[in-house]
């Protein structure tokens, strides 16, 4: 299921996921009755994120290999570190637009690289693919619409609490997705 969704996120066709989060974080696991609370939803989304990362990493490796083979056969790739260094600082990505830019709060060592360049530091094959791929948050641009929050019939705004819980967890996990609340009577446009 998440693999299927990951494929669609990777291809750029899946824009939103409507999923339940019935309770806030204070709710005990022993009384979920077949529903999700924020920690469980996040762990589900982590599974999804991992699949997306794997797809991006696989594509990345494939591209690097292809490039390497092309250069080897054309004699373009000579392994000179000075030349490779210049190439790295002046990338010309053919289709980087598929990916969303790395987050603004990414590691400092990425700060002087333009967003598009973040993807193209793969040019020297000796740089591990993972370092680049991991700088892109896996679910950037995906909107998670939270449904099915159970009302406690008190003054408490449970949906707001659930949203706050999820946003806090998202900060820790850096999944990149945005959470929206499905309030009754509202409409959402994508």
């Amino acid at each position, binding site marked *: 299921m998440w693999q299927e969704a990951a494929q669609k996120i990777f291809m750029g066709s*899946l824009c939103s996921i*409507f999923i339940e989060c019935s309770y806030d974080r204070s709710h005990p696991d*022993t009384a979920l009755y*077949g529903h999700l609370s924020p920690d469980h939803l996040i762990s589900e989304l982590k599974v999804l994120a991992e699949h997306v990362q794997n797809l991006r990493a696989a594509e990345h490796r494939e591209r690097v290999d292809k490039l390497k083979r092309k250069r080897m056969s054309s004699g373009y790739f000579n392994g000179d570190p000075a030349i490779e260094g210049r190439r790295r600082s002046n990338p010309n990505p053919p289709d980087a637009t598929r990916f969303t830019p790395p987050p603004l709060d990414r590691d400092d060592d990425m700060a002087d690289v333009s967003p598009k360049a973040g993807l193209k530091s793969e040019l020297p094959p000796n740089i591990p693919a993972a370092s680049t791929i991991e700088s892109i948050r896996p679910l950037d641009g995906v909107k998670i619409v939270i449904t099915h929050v159970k009302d406690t019939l008190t003054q408490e705004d449970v949906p707001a609490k659930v949203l706050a819980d999820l946003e806090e967890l998202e900060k820790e996990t850096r999944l990149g997705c945005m959470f929206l609340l499905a309030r009754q009577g509202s*409409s959402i446009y*994508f």
Partner: protein
Amino acid sequence: MADLGFVWFGYMQGSGGGPSESNVSGYLIRSTATKWTKNSLLAVDAGTHLSGIIRILEDNVTLSSKSTSSKFPSSASIATAESGIFPFSGASLPSEAPKTNASYILRELVSTYLITHTHLDHLSGFVINTASFTQEASPKRLAALPNVINAIKTHIFNDVIWPNLSDENAGVGLVTYQRLSAAADYVSMSEGLSAQAWPVSHGHCMKMHTHWGRKSTAGLDPCSNSQGHSMQNHQTRWCVLDSAVFFIRDSATGKEVMMWGDVEPGSSPDNQAASTLKLITCRLDFFGSKE
């Protein structure tokens, strides 16, 4: 994302999980790439349905009476009555009265109900709203995975809980069932929208469960394996209630949304190896063997 265009709106008739019956799961979706027609709106779950439509029309009464042009937000966003965005803009609603317009929307603009699972908070609105369906109109289509249809057929439209309004078992034909194959080709649902259904688990039944997949210690007989509950594992004799996930695709753009019914956690403190994917594989196995 703004670059996705204004493809969808999911209009929340009800978005809560109870306990109030006026706000349980019900959504309307339309491809804004298409013009309003008789088949514009797809209902996904209908725990709250007609009362939710009435409510939004009442909340938007000033907008609905004068709004004829289609107006959508400039980027992906949630719109409420205060924002001046009216989800039925351009639908040529016939009246000044919210209830009359709601009736029109129900009768004329919604033709298909896509149901994730059989729990009442996802279904009760549809059942009660059948009172406004008419013989003159085409039957409303109830689309779901086969076990959901069978449960509704057996336990709802059975001339006991509710009259048999379906077109099976000598019913009156206001509702027609469409049994969707799991993880099969996309099926056309409404104008410009198609859907694909995947089965997931919504937890073990109350009789046998505890919810983390522990073996029951009660030693009770398992639930009968016919009506919405299915055997997850014959050896350990647990049973689960099936729910569904729908991928809903806009034909014009290829963009999709994924809509879950209720779902239990995929991994458990008892059994970390019982990942979501394993659980779902198990569900697919069941469907494979049943058909």
